[in-house]
């Protein structure tokens, strides 16, 4: 559920897609060959659910539900804390373009190695590295004062 929420940037939608992923996984258990990690297979089903949703163009342009900045704003003192860095980062990740967000979430949030992400998404490792790099740069632009250490 957390993965779907991160990939979509919306908690409620993430729950819906996670439920759909579980239902798809159950109905498609016969497609699991049993020769790989079940978690990886289930992750692939969840990623595909989120991708299908993206392809359907169902996402209206609106602030992320994981977005405390848009929801009410962070004051400077809050921004100074590491906890608020996490909240601001979660919100900023939700605003990334979908392909960059997917690569960033799978690599930096889920901690999957590039080779495993390639197997999950079908995107080459070199392309994934470019997407993750662009995501980091975009996040740096958004979160600059929070992470500059000055």
């Amino acid at each position: 559920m957390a993965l779907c929420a991160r990939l979509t940037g919306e908690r409620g939608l993430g729950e819906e897609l996670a439920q759909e992923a579980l239902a798809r996984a159950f109905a498609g258990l016969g497609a699991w060959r049993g020769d790989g990690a079940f978690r990886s297979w289930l992750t692939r089903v969840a990623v595909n659910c989120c991708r299908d949703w993206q392809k359907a163009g169902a996402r209206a342009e609106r602030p992320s539900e994981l977005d405390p900045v848009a929801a009410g704003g962070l004051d400077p003192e809050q921004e100074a804390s590491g906890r608020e860095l996490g909240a601001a980062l979660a919100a900023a990740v939700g605003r990334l373009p979908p392909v960059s967000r997917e690569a960033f979430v799978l690599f930096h949030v889920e901690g999957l190695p590039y080779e495993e992400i390639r197997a999950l998404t079908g995107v080459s490792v070199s392309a994934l590295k470019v997407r993750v790099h662009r995501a980091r740069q975009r996040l740096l632009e958004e979160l600059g004062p929070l992470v500059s250490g000055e």
Partner: protein
Amino acid sequence: MRDEVRRLLDGEVGGDEARALLERLPPAERREAEALLRIAGAAARLEPPAPSPDFAARAMARVRARPPPRRSLWTWLRSPRVTPLGALAGAFAGVLLALGAVASLGRAPAPRAPAVVAQLDLHAPLARSVAVAGDFNGWRPEATPLLRGEGGVWTVRVPLVPGRRYQYMFLVDGAWVSDPSAAATAEDGFGGRNAVLEL
């Protein structure tokens, strides 16, 4: 950005090599690399959003609404099924079968348990397809479709063995439905209840 900094951020460089790399960067590039490392570190520590209290119940409801999983013959044939324990059990079963075959030599074959035919009905006038899955057909709804009759009542007759207890569910247009006329029900392990038929 330098390739070596990208490699650092991608986790391909660590430890002393990473520190040495940061130290030899010009100040501006070093600050940027350290800021990006903070982002990567914060991402790895992000707390997962907590699911709603009813998340599991809603997920299971959606799972139940799907047809049960099926394995293709090709997948079944290709998948490994023999485990050491399974092989041992198979060998033991083989010995029992051999002993049974020897013991039964010269004896008349045992009579088969008599079967009764039970008729299952479901009133579903708007349904396009109805099937039933249960203990009697290996929970394979495709094996036992119901036929639509007058008044939107779907029926099927299934041979059952007296003295046994069967659980079953209807599959109506792809959604699992309990038999509303069942005399008894039992937990199905998915948050719902199977109909129970005792003969």
